[in-house]
């Protein structure tokens, strides 16, 4: 199956250099990017990654009576292409801070406490409807190290592959109604308000299970459209 990749509308993607985020000015090219027409090399990509990387499942909120501290959430995510077709069988990597805003990472030296029952990283494969459910706790906000009072709002990181090299996506998902969303320099690097809104998940009615978990849904759209032979 062939995939068509079109240039994205710039306003729906983040600016590369962001005021108040000094690393962006050190690390993004000064020269204009070279515009290329994708060839077979960029219109193919790894489809069997699950044979290469270890899957970790989609439950990072604890096991048995060792539950992570925080608000339990079930996050239902659908991964679609630009035609709305589900992207099934693709590897998704997910990572986030714990409820106190601390990551499981040697570089995170924030004062917030670690939570031994919180796993912090999930890696799974979407089902044939492009869906997966993550069981986790709501991540805490945290101050950006060595910044001028910038706090990241609660957010969850996603890394996805899709069907071709150019459908690779690294993104972050936000929570509705968070006061810190309005000031976040990463979320607000996306100029288009509707595109920013699509980075925010939606609450659904709570789960009818013994935990009464909060339920959120989110949609992720990967680049690519079906290219049918004979059609432009």
């Amino acid at each position: 199956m062939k995939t068509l990749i079109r240039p994205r509308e710039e306003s729906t993607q983040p600016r590369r250099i962001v005021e108040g985020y000094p690393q962006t000015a050190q690390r993004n090219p000064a020269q204009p990017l070279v515009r290329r027409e994708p060839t077979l090399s960029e219109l193919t990509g790894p489809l069997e990654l699950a044979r290469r990387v270890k899957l970790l499942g989609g439950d990072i909120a604890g096991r048995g009576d060792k539950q992570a501290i925080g608000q339990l959430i079930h996050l239902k995510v659908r991964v679609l292409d630009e035609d709305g077709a589900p992207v099934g069988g693709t590897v998704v990597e997910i990572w986030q801070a714990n409820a106190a805003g601390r990551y499981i990472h040697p570089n995170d030296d924030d004062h917030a406490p670690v939570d031994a029952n919180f796993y912090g990283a999930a890696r799974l494969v979407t089902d044939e409807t492009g869906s997966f459910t993550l069981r986790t706790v709501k991540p805490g906000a945290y101050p950006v190290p060595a910044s001028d009072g910038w706090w990241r709002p609660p957010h969850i990181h996603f890394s996805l592959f899709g069907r071709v090299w150019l459908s690779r996506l690294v993104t972050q998902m936000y929570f509705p109604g968070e006061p810190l969303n309005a000031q976040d320099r990463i979320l607000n690097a996306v100029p288009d308000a509707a595109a920013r809104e699509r980075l925010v998940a939606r609450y659904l009615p709570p789960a009818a299970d013994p935990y009464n978990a909060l339920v959120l849904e989110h949609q992720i759209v990967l680049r690519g459209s079906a290219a049918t032979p004979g059609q432009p």
Partner: protein
Amino acid sequence: MKRGALVPTGEATVGPFFPPRYVDAGANDLTQLEGRGARGEVIEIRGRVVQDDGAPLENLIVEIWQPDAQGIFRHPADPRHAQADPNFLGWGRAATDQDGRYFFRTIRPGAPQGREPHINFMLMFSGLLRILKTTMFFEDAPDPVLNLVSNRRHLLIGKKEGENLYTFDVRLRGGNETPFFDD
């Protein structure tokens, strides 16, 4: 739903806390798949990634995608994919060390249809709100993608340092900045 009706989700940085466990042991060795060796010439690619002031970047994620020794991509869009090497997936991931260095062990790619031999690179890091994409070539040759780059094309050509060793350094910004692509 109308073709192309949905807008691709906005990118964001991987940030400084990409889980180290996602750089799986052996993820930078493309020559083996489930214990079986791929066909072709084994090569090593080493490089160093620096920012504007020349400082090396630690924990930057480098991913590569390439065809097998015959130039076939393991993907149904490649008309020759039925002949693809069953023991070669074509994808790898590495994280840079404290000196900004990454390392891949792979198979020297063949020439895909209409292209010269090359390896696709992606870089992800704190401060990169969008993935940076570039391509490494093995020699200066009339490749349609390399031809888009005029005076800086030499920066996309890996340096042969030994029988099976190439270096491909990446400078994100500043003098001798690596050319990056948008598509």
